Every structure is written in structure tokens, then in C-alpha cells.
């Protein structure tokens, strides 16, 4: 998502990394049926960065002198836009029965709206609320009987209100429990890192918190492998994204915080060529993250559906079996290169992406 404010390179770089990870993972999974080792980092990064971006976007709006109520309305409109886009995406890119599978776009829409409430909280309250959500999520999964909604690794709810709502809360692909923790913590870290002049102290705080989360994740994993009996039942999941285990959430969140706090130290700054190139690339991808998200799905999924249709097969006939892993990787790389060229062309010629549509519609 575009922050719309003065840009921080580390956010652009991190989001670009998330895009690269997402494209490679999806191409490899959906074309070759292979799960790369770096799977499971893209979505947490996107969710985390959406919180930080929200802070930057809001600050920029305030600096422009926009009234608070206007900003709140724009926030809600943006959230609804993403939610609606998420539903449309589920229908058109996947299948109509997938409308309420609570994919990442729908989640981000709800999360963006929730930030309008969360931003009013003092940071300790926000941290506490995140902790409560984090701790409640395995309990809620236990109550809801999470595995009952999942068939062969896919979320498969009945199209009834209780299942739909439960999917949004606990059992979907990106349920609010515990995914909402990412944007909230992202917002907290963003307002700490980018809201004060005293950056070094904030970066230290982010690093320490990130390290603590990583240690928690490591400890959970260690205990889960060695002495699972020591852990409560809900905390015994290993490193899994579906369901998002405690170790996974703590680990991915901690890593995101660490990287965000640490990146400014290693990124080239100044006006030399490497720095300028990096800025240009990161900014181009980062500005059009939403467009890329939609586009890469269309580009690699629709040919599968169409080819299967033409061959008279089930639509999902070639899904996960369309190519070899190297070919999928190569295609992902080609897609990224081509999309970079396309995005540069769009930027140069003032062509609009889906982000611009969102801004036009919502701001």
C-alpha cells in the first residue's frame, strides 16, 4: 500500500522483499506444487507494513491540515475498498465459492479500519491488546475446532453466516485472530520509529522487542520439539502459517521488526548510483504493491484455468502441476522484470494503477 507520505527507504525495501517472496512462493506453489523454504514471510510483512504505512499516511494527511474526521472517513473508505476488492478478487481470480475465504486483501481492509480505533490507544494498551489477541488465538482455534474447517490444507467453510463470521475471526486464511496483531504492532513500531526525532532510541526499542519475539518463537519451537508436554495444548503447533501458530506469529513479527529497525543501518544512503538505483527499484515496486498483488495472481492463475477449460478439464486440473520448479522460478523472475519495466512505463506516462484508483475513490 502506498503511504502517500515522505518515503522511508527501509519500508520500500521491506515491501519489495515481501513482493518478491510472494511472487516466487505463489509461482512455485501454484505452478510447480513446491513450497519454497521462505514461504510464510510475505503476508506477515505486508500486514506488518500496512500498520507502519497507516501511521505515515495519517501523519502526512495531518501535516496537510486535513481534518481528523475527514481522515477517519478516508480510512474507513480505504478499508471498505480493500475489503470489497478482496471479495472481488476471490470471485474473479479464484472461484465464486471462495468469496468468503478471508484472503489477505479482505483482512487488510478490516485491519486498516481497525487502525482508526487502535491509533487512539496509548502504546502500552496497544501492546497489551496485541498480546491478548495473540494469546487468545490458539484458545479461539480450540473452541472453534479449527481443523474441522480445513480440508486437505484448504479452508472449506459452509456458506452459512456462522461459518463465514467464524472464518473472519478464527478459521479463515487470514483471520483477525491473530493476524490483526501484525498491523497493530506495525502501527506501534511505525509511530515509534517515524514519529519522533529521537530515532536511535526508538530503533533500539524496536530491535529489543523484535529480538524478544524471536527468542519467544525459538523457545516455543524448542519446547514443542523437546518437551511438548510443558506447553499448553494450543501452543503446541510447530512453525505453521495455517493455522498461524504462536511460534510463527512471534517469529515472523519479531523478524519484521528487527529488519525494519536494522535496515537503515545497512541500506546505502546518499546520492551515489547504488543508492539511487535501489531507491528507484524499491519505490517502484513498493508504490505498486497492490497492483502487483492482483496482477501476479491473474498472470499465473488465469492461464491455468483457461488452459484447463480449453482442454475440457476441471478448472484446477493444471493447478500445482503446470511446470517444473526451475521453470516456475524463471517465470516468477520474468514476471518481476517485466512488471518492473511496465511499472516504470506507467510512472513515466502517468498511467494509473489500482492504488491510484483507491486514492481517487477514497481520499
Amino acid at each position, binding site marked *: 500500500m502506498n503511504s502517500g507520505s515522505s518515503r522511508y527507504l527501509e519500508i520500500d525495501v521491506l515491501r519489495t522483499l515481501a513482493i518478491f517472496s510472494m511472487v516466487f512462493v505463489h509461482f512455485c506453489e501454484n505452478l510447480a506444487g513446491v513450497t519454497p523454504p521462505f514461504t510464510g514471510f510475505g503476508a506477515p510483512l505486508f500486514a506488518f507494513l500496512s500498520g507502519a504505512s497507516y501511521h505515515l499516511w495519517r501523519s502526512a494527511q495531518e501535516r496537510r491540515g486535513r481534518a481528523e474526521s475527514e481522515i477517519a472517513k478516508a480510512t474507513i473508505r480505504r478499508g471498505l475498498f480493500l475489503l470489497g476488492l478482496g471479495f472481488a478478487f476471490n470471485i474473479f481470480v479464484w472461484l465464486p465459492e471462495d468469496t468468503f475465504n478471508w484472503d489477505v486483501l479482505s483482512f487488510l481492509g478490516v485491519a486498516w479500519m481497525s487502525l482508526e480505533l487502535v491509533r487512539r490507544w496509548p502504546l502500552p494498551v496497544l501492546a497489551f491488546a496485541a498480546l491478548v489477541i495473540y494469546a487468545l488465538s490458539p484458545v479461539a482455534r480450540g*473452541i472453534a475446532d479449527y481443523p474441522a474447517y480445513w480440508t486437505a490444507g484448504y479452508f472449506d467453510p459452509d456458506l452459512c453466516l456462522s461459518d463465514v463470521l467464524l472464518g473472519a475471526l478464527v478459521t479463515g486464511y487470514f483471520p483477525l485472530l491473530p493476524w490483526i496483531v501484525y498491523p497493530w504492532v506495525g502501527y506501534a513500531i511505525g509511530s515509534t520509529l517515524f514519529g519522533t526525532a529521537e530515532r536511535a532510541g526508538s530503533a533500539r526499542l524496536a530491535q529489543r522487542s523484535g529480538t524478544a519475539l524471536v527468542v519467544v518463537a525459538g523457545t516455543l519451537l524448542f519446547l514443542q520439539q523437546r518437551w511438548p508436554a510443558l506447553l499448553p495444548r494450543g501452543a503446541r503447533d510447530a512453525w505453521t502459517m495455517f493455522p498461524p501458530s504462536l511460534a510463527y506469529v512471534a517469529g515472523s513479527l519479531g523478524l519484521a521488526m528487527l529488519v525494519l529497525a536494522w535496515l537503515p543501518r545497512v541500506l546505502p544512503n546518499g546520492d551515489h548510483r547504488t543508492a539511487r538505483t535501489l531507491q528507484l527499484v524499491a519505490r517502484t515496486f513498493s508504490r505498486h504493491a497492490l497492483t502487483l498483488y492482483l496482477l501476479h495472481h491473474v498472470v499465473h492463475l488465469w492461464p491455468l484455468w483457461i488452459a484447463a477449460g480449453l482442454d475440457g478439464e476441471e478448472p484446477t486440473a493444471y493447478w500445482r502441476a503446470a511446470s517444473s520448479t526451475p521453470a516456475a522460478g524463471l517465470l516468477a523472475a520474468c514476471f518481476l522484470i517485466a512488471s518492473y519495466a511496465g511499472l516504470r512505463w506507467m510512472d513515466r506516462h502517468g498511467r494509473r494503477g489500482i492504488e491510484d484508483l483507491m486514492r481517487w475513490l477514497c481520499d
Partner: protein
Amino acid sequence: MSDLPNLPAGSERVAIGFTAEEAPSGAVLLLVDAATKRRAVARATEPRESFTPGAGAGVDLELWLVPTSGESREEEELLVEALRAELAAAGERDRAAPPPPVVVALQSAYVLWSPGVLVLLSPRERWLALRRAAIDAAFVIGELRAIEEAVEATWPELEADASLAFESSERALPRRDELRARFSRVLALRMRLSRLAPRALLPHVHPPTLASQLAERLRERARLPERLEHLREKLELQFQAVELASQRFSDYALARTGHSLEWVIIVLLAGQTILLLVELLAGYGAA
């Protein structure tokens, strides 16, 4: 001994530093500020042939004492004019747009004054009294200028913080330490100024002495009362702004503790409600 070739024999140069050192290097000439125990100390100097001030470290004022006989007024005038021109030239060497040297003419003394340099022309027997008065006046004027500069330096920060005087916010909280430091700074400046004020606004002495006349003229030329008044106003405003901001901070911090507790309770209740909802929904699903 004269460093300047065109000064009459017997002229002296004293480099003076205002210091609070316990054991200063050099003779103590005058206690200039009892509160901070600052004293005017004569620093060792190298012979020099120009008026350029600030050559030595720790030198705040250069005092040139030039003896006059009081016999030939015309010669005195010519000397004063030559020195004035020299001081102006030295000032131009030192900075781009120097203030012109101030010339104070008293019945039996002349004083030339440009930043950092004070030249006294008087009969030798008047030197002691004049020197004390000149050092004291120079200290007061220098101190006032230092406060003015400090106040001006604080101004942009204050303007940036002006909104905090109205209300505080979550985002402003991390700046509390910064504001605390600023509060101390402004308070310290006010204290300095209030110590200085009685000396800057000293009533005219009657019957006057040469030293009192010199001090009065220097204070008058330096426009001390007006500057003091302006400084007071500025510091008052700065103090008020910082004080208000600190008040807002305290209010906000107090309210925030209460709010946080309320929010914690709400979050816990919300957590419980979510679990109930999940349980309810799961129950419907199962049914």
C-alpha cells in the same frame, strides 16, 4: 609599555577574562558576579599591534588604558579620532558588518568601545576607578548579550512547541525530556536575567563620580533598560509557553494512566466477548 606604536608612552593593555575558576591564572581584578563567583581576571598577553580582540583563549574583554595629561584637548581629540578609526578598521577585519565603535566623552576621560575592546583615555590617577567601572559595565552588557543570544537560539524550538502549550498528545509524550531540559534552560536564563537586572537598571548616582558617569553612559549607550525589558517579555513568554506545555504534559500523562486502565479493561472484556462469540458461532456451525 605600549603595544600600539601610535599610543602615548605609558599606555597599558589588559586582557580580561570573566571566570568562575577556583584558582584562576592571573591577577583577580574584580568580583563581577557574587552569585556565580565570577571574577574578572587579568590574562597573560602577548604584545600586539592591533585592536583585534579575542586573540587569547579565555579573554572576554581587552582593556586599553591610555594616559592623558588633560593639557592639550586638541591632541586628545586627534588621538581619540585616530583610535576610533583604528577600532573601526579592526572591527571590519573581524566581521562583515561591525557596529561602529562607541565614543563616550566625559569631562576628563574618553571611552572608545567596540565589541570586545574598551579603550580608556584619562589621567593616570583615574585609571583604577575607571577600570573597575568599565569592567563591571562590560560584564553586565556582555552578560545581557549572552542571554539575548541564548533566548534567540531558543526561539525556533519554542515556536515549534507552541502547539503543545494548548494540548498534549500521545505523539508529543516522548518529547517530555526535551521540554524538561528547555524548561530548565528558560528558568536558568530568567534567573540570570533577574540577577543582572538590578545592575543594569542601577539608578544614576548623585553627586556623580567619574566612574559612575562612565558606567551610566555605557549602560545608556548599550540601551540596557530597553533591552532588559524586551528580554523580560520574551523570557516571560517562553517560560509561560514551556510551563503551559509541561502542565499539559502532566494533565495528559495523568489522564493517560486512567485511560490506559479503562482500555485494558475494555480489551479484556472484548477478548472475553470474542471467545464467547467464537464459542457461539462454533456451536451454531456444529449444530
